[in-house]
């Protein structure tokens, strides 16, 4: 069964950081269309700070690591995504306090808790054209019976679910965040937060599949 040790957690985070750097312009471009042209810049600034912070907590438990990441994001990202991703990581971290290694149940709980934090902070519902749209189906998938699936199947499926859900934000009318002010004009564009969330899930799966 899927398993994730601390080194892998650290790798996931570092890979997320470099994917945010690579996609800085792309995410910002997406945010230009329906927001204020800063999502990539925000995420990159946040994860750069996270990577700088990692050495301080590397020998703590995974819970502490995730909570520290959350706090770092809160205090460096700003905007909407800062408190949202920050809270998500803090909630995820709280779920796995003391752990040095995560099994499938831990991972399921961790994703559920992240979504809980996100929704508690942002009060968005699925379909509002936000981060929530990407994460919710992934959490739902984890709730289903996964007993017959191989690790690879699970990891591939969460990525394809996240991708589909992210792409599905395109025709939606935004109900939360800055894009909601555009009303009808928010339709026809991907939601930047949904895309950054997909990128994170992709890096998560890649490390666990050992292909990153």
């Amino acid at each position, binding site marked *: 069964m899927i398993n994730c040790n601390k080194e892998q957690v650290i790798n996931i985070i570092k890979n997320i950081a470099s994917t945010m750097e690579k996609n800085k312009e792309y995410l910002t471009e997406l945010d230009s269309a329906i927001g204020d042209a800063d999502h990539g810049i925000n995420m990159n600034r946040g994860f750069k700070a996270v990577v700088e912070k990692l050495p301080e907590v590397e020998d703590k438990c995974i819970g502490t690591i995730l909570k520290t990441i959350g706090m770092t994001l809160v205090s460096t990202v700003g905007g909407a995504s800062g408190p949202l991703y920050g809270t998500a990581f803090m909630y995820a971290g709280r779920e796995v306090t003391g752990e040095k290694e995560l099994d499938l149940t831990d991972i399921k709980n961790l994703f559920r808790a992240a979504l809980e934090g996100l929704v508690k902070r942002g009060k968005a519902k699925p379909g509002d054209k936000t981060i929530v749209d990407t994460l919710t189906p992934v959490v739902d998938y984890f709730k289903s019976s996964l007993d017959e699936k191989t690790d690879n199947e699970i990891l591939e499926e969460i990525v394809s679910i996240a991708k589909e859900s992210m792409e599905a934000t395109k025709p939606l009318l935004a109900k939360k965040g*800055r894009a909601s002010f555009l009303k009808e004009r928010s339709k026809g564009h991907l939601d930047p937060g949904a895309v950054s969330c997909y990128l994170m899930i992709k890096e998560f799966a890649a490390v666990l599949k050992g292909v990153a």
Partner: protein
Amino acid sequence: MKKIINDPEQVVDEMLTGMVMAHPEIVRVNGFNVLIRKESKKKDKVTLISGGGSGHEPAHGGFIGYGMLDAAVSGEVFTSPTPDQILEAIKAVDTGKGSLLIVKNYSGDVMNFEMASEMAEMDGIEIEQVIINDDVAVEDSTYTTGRRGIAGTIFVHKIAGAMAEKGASLSEVKRVAQKAINNLRSKGMALTSCTVPSVGKPTFEIAEDEMEVGLGIHGEPGVEKIKIKSAAEIAENLVDSIVEDLPFKSGDEVALLINGLGSTPLMELYILNKSVQDLCRKRGIKVYKTYVDEYMTSLEMAGASISMLKLDDELKELLDEPADTLVLKQGGKKDD
């Protein structure tokens, strides 16, 4: 990108440094993007904290001073400040009488200020918060985020600031701030986009004969893109939406704010003001006081917004109280 800057990543820090170098009456809290009154904590008053992303200068630091704000927090360009910065602002001016956070209704601002309030309350500081949502371009009902806050914010700073200066309690200061918000409506338009320094190119494309109507203050596109119009027609579009929304009625007295978004010459703001005043007169709305200037900008965006605040005797009196900030200075006797 044509800007007088050094490193795009350092614009906020360098700006704040340049600002306190020019104005000894405001002080930067060491290591934070927080500006406060030089004479803060000297007086037993409720403190007012406002802020948001940078790029809206002179907002918010320009409104620190007697009769308005005690502290202003700056985020990155167009990015709401983080909770730790906001908390620092709250603490730096805390007098023990409580703080009112003046927040514009953007998810980012609301969430970050909310987190900061929670932290401040844990530190034993009494916190109240008002959310400004003056922009009529977005209708409340269908959109759960509600309306965003734009330049009308200045009136809330002024009204709440005057009340705080009188020594009123936190709940009283919050009451008048909320009263101002309830009677406040705004709408903006833009002729050009702005360019975020770290992005390096304009946020949106717009043709030579087009304008954006109903936009915010973060370089986001407007609610609709239409053919460019005359000043009189622009005034009509904005005033009609504003007036019909509250609604403002014949006989009402209002304060008017004609706000430049960054690169609109004062000449054009005054021409716009003429049309707006004409429209108010036609509708029987009495303009008690008018402010025309750049108060809340979007970097170098060309365009303007109009804000109207319906006045009663209490709001009139608070509006007329003296203020001594970098941008807004009004006469009258100060009692400190």
